[in-house]
């Protein structure tokens, strides 16, 4: 079904894809028909994220020759299908976390424009865990699905290319996304100084006290009005200025400033890379581009290095020092607060025994008493802790040594990942 849009598109792409050039990669074949056939018939792209970035990604992909696109955004899909007859945009439904490996295997490339860090960690770890190794421990190239990730905040953004197993992965750079800092409760309760302290006081402490079971809904104008008024009263009482309705909304909804232009820039960078990855028409971004547009136009393109002890794709052991005297619940809290781990709801197994399980309820109840036990009561030297967390498909921490009261934990090795994925495939 040739449409004007469909035909017209190749006028431009045809030059890049149909002609050899000094900057094309060695693997490039200057054969437009071959690329066209692959783009139209074979290659399928998954787009994760339905916000400002996601919609731009979808448009750019459709206009860059990609034909078979599976996005999350239903409205945007309908819109693109209408604007661009002949493109095959079929939205998927449900959460990405509910889909299995078989689902992800069908894609040539996966491209994300998500605000959510947990969702990006999840898809990243899933793709790393899908790698298949041969007997010598080499990765089967066919099991590698390139993952392009991007994010924006105000005038800033970043775009990156992840080849699972080969480049740094999302988890390797987790420290670039530190967990949100919460105000200490004692500041909110006793010594507020900023308008934000008054707002968080109303939000975290006053709302549950006054409204009991009623859950706060930031989109309910009555709720928001109450929040603003309560914060204002608190501020007045402490002589603090600057509580406004907009600030109240910003704080309780954790609103990230966003503009169309930055989304456009990052989504376009991601799709430019996608096109080069599938066609070899030019070198691919190696592997991280940072964009800062507030002060001039500043970009920094660099190779974000693989973290050897990465929880997801690491190949060497790392040492995590912790006292054996601490309780399991404190250890779990440490895993949550550590910028390199940021695990939110880990379940821990050791030697095929449940040490602490978040679900199902019966297991949670059965293992809860362990939370108050000390680490050196629960583990032995050389033990491996298998950790599952909703954020990651799987991970493990090896407990390698007990040295008096201090214990040293080492993290998962590549062999561990191998046995995981080999077990599954």
């Amino acid at each position, binding site marked *: 079904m040739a449409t004007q849009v469909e035909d017209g*598109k190749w006028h431009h792409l045809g030059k890049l894809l149909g002609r050899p050039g000094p900057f094309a990669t060695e693997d490039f074949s200057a054969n437009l028909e071959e690329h066209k056939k692959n783009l139209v018939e074979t290659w399928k792209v998954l787009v994760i994220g339905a916000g400002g970035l996601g919609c731009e990604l979808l448009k*750019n992909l459709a206009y860059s020759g990609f034909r078979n696109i599976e996005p999350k955004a239903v409205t945007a899909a309908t819109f693109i299908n209408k604007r661009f007859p002949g493109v095959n945009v079929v939205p998927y439904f449900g959460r990405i976390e509910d889909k299995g490996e078989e689902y992800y295997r069908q894609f040539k490339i996966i491209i994300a424009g998500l605000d959510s860090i947990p969702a990006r960690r999840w898809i990243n770890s899933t793709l790393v865990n899908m790698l298949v190794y041969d007997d010598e421990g080499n990765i089967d190239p066919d099991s590698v699905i390139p993952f392009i990730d991007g994010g924006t905040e105000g005038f800033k953004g970043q775009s990156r290319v992840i080849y699972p197993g080969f480049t740094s992965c999302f988890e390797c750079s987790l420290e670039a996304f530190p967990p949100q800092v919460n105000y200490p409760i004692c500041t909110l309760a006793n010594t507020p100084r900023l308008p934000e302290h008054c707002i968080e006081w109303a939000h975290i402490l006053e709302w549950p006290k006054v409204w009991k079971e009623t859950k706060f809904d930031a989109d309910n104008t009555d709720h928001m009005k109450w929040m603003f008024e309560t914060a204002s009263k608190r501020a007045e009482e402490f002589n603090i200025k600057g509580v406004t309705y907009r600030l109240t909304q910003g704080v309780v909804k954790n609103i990230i400033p966003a503009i169309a232009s930055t989304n456009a820039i990052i989504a376009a960078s991601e799709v*430019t890379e996608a096109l080069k990855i599938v066609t070899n028409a030019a*070198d691919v971004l190696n592997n991280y581009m940072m964009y800062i547009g507030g002060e001039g136009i500043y970009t920094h393109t660099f190779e974000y290095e693989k973290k050897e002890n990465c929880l997801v794709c690491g190949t060497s052991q790392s040492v995590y020092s912790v006292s054996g005297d601490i309780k399991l619940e404190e250890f779990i809290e440490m895993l949550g607060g550590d910028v390199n781990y940021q695990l939110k709801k880990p379940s821990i197994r050791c030697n095929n025994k449940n040490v602490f399980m978040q679900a199902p309820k019966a297991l949670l109840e059965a293992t809860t008493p362990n939370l108050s036990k000390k680490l050196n009561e629960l583990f032995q030297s050389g033990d491996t802790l298998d950790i599952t967390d909703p954020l990651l498909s799987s991970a493990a921490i090896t407990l390698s040594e007990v040295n008096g009261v201090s214990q040293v934990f080492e993290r998962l090795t590549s062999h561990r990942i191998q046995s995981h994925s080999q077990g599954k495939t």
Partner: protein
Amino acid sequence: MASNGTDTARYDRQLRLWGEEGQALLEASHIVLLRTSAVGTETLKNLVLPGIGQFTVIDDQLVDDASFNDFFIPDGSNGKPRAEVTVKLLNELNDRVTGHALVKNPIDIVHNHIDTLSQYSVIIANGLPEETVLRLSSFAWEKNIPLVVVKTNGLIGSLRVVVPEHTVIESKPDNPMDDLRLSVPFPELSEYAANIDLSNMDSTQHSHVPYIVILLQHLNKWKTAHDGALPSTYAEKNAFKDQVIKGAHKPGEENFLEAHKGAYKAYTRYEIKSDVRAILEDPKTSNPTDKFWVLAAALSQFVKKEGKGCLPLMGSLPDMHSSTESYIALQKIYQAKAATDISSISHHVDHILQTRQLSLSISTDDIKKFSKNAAFLRVIRYRSIQDEYNPHTSNSSLIGAELASDADSNIQWYIALRSVDLFQSTHGRLPGHRHADVEEDTANLISLHRKTLEGLGLKDVAADDRYPREMVRYGGSELHAVAALVGGVTSQEIIKLIVHQFAPMNNTWIFNGNKGTTNVYAIVFEQRGTRGSTEIEGASQRVGVSFAQE
């Protein structure tokens, strides 16, 4: 005043960046695009969405097969005027914005009816021949209208911004330094800190003394013991830090930890940054004619007189471990001093307006904003495209130095794009446009590329033929994703130019889609003083990447 009826719910996420004042400027703007294409409509899209007032597309091209890389040209519009087709779809993005299509030849408009362009706030030029761009550039320069010239070709893009002078009050840097004045405390601050007696406090009170008070007291103590000098050597700084932390009642007292961590704020000498100093010394402060320069002149007088070498106090206090009472008390001291400074500047403003008999309306809010942002003021003077194309004023030494340090610098693409322009002027089409001409165009472009290098005064630089070869491969194609990226950057620069916040780049930006890199080059020297002067001030050149530090 500025907020008259903007849609605060729709624009919430952007209002958090440029506020209602910036939004009002956007909504009052009218942007014109001369000759459309995907990069043109992608630029307009990102301006229509945040809500500019109006836009006009001037183009007499009809939609043809090659137009369908543009998202705003729907199927079935072959043969229709491109301007009308795209404006219709762009208009659908935001009902608060009005788009106009003018089906006329933009080249004819520039050469024969250029005065009709004086009504626009920003002019975007895309795909116009060199001589048309030059004519447009001198017109826009004369009328003081920002001109933005945007190009894409294959995986390469470029953006050139020209405006004689762009001033910014709120440049909103990412991590501004706190303005605490610990090394040069004003009397009210010194007095407040001196009157707090830490020795008679219980442990709760002691742990809630703001670290600013702790640092001021220890700095005083240090100065008394060191003939009034601040800690300056590495050893002295460490000794000072030790002195501070020893004041804690117990380890881990948070305010003392903050004082220890922030000790550098006490011994770092106060100074006015060089770019702000340049504004204070700018010849325009001796003869101000507009609002910005009257305020700058008043600021300059303040610094010499009441400020005793310092800028007006910003008046804001970062959060710190403290009791509410102490924090608010300290905040009031900073705010009161800021208010006093503002009122001093206000007097200078009145005096300047009176003696110079200027009828400018400068409100208290204007003065307040200027004072609070005094450390972040920016003045960018661009150079004209005429100067860029003149070998005597173009920045060939920058280009030469850049190539000497990195033969694969993105400046290569600037040269390659210039040679493509030369080809277009000579042959009336883009090199590599037709498959059949690739071989012949390659030979021609290689020779024009050498000519371009010579024209830039770079005879000694060995021409790298890969660049013209690759440009012929691209053949003037406009890849949608590249157009979207370059259009995104272009729209962002235009927003910064309109809202007069943040800082636009100066003056040429290159996107290299081969590697996913971009650079900003001052292709024409930024010179201080009169235009055309051959004297070059090293300090005012912005060479290479717009800012290199991380």
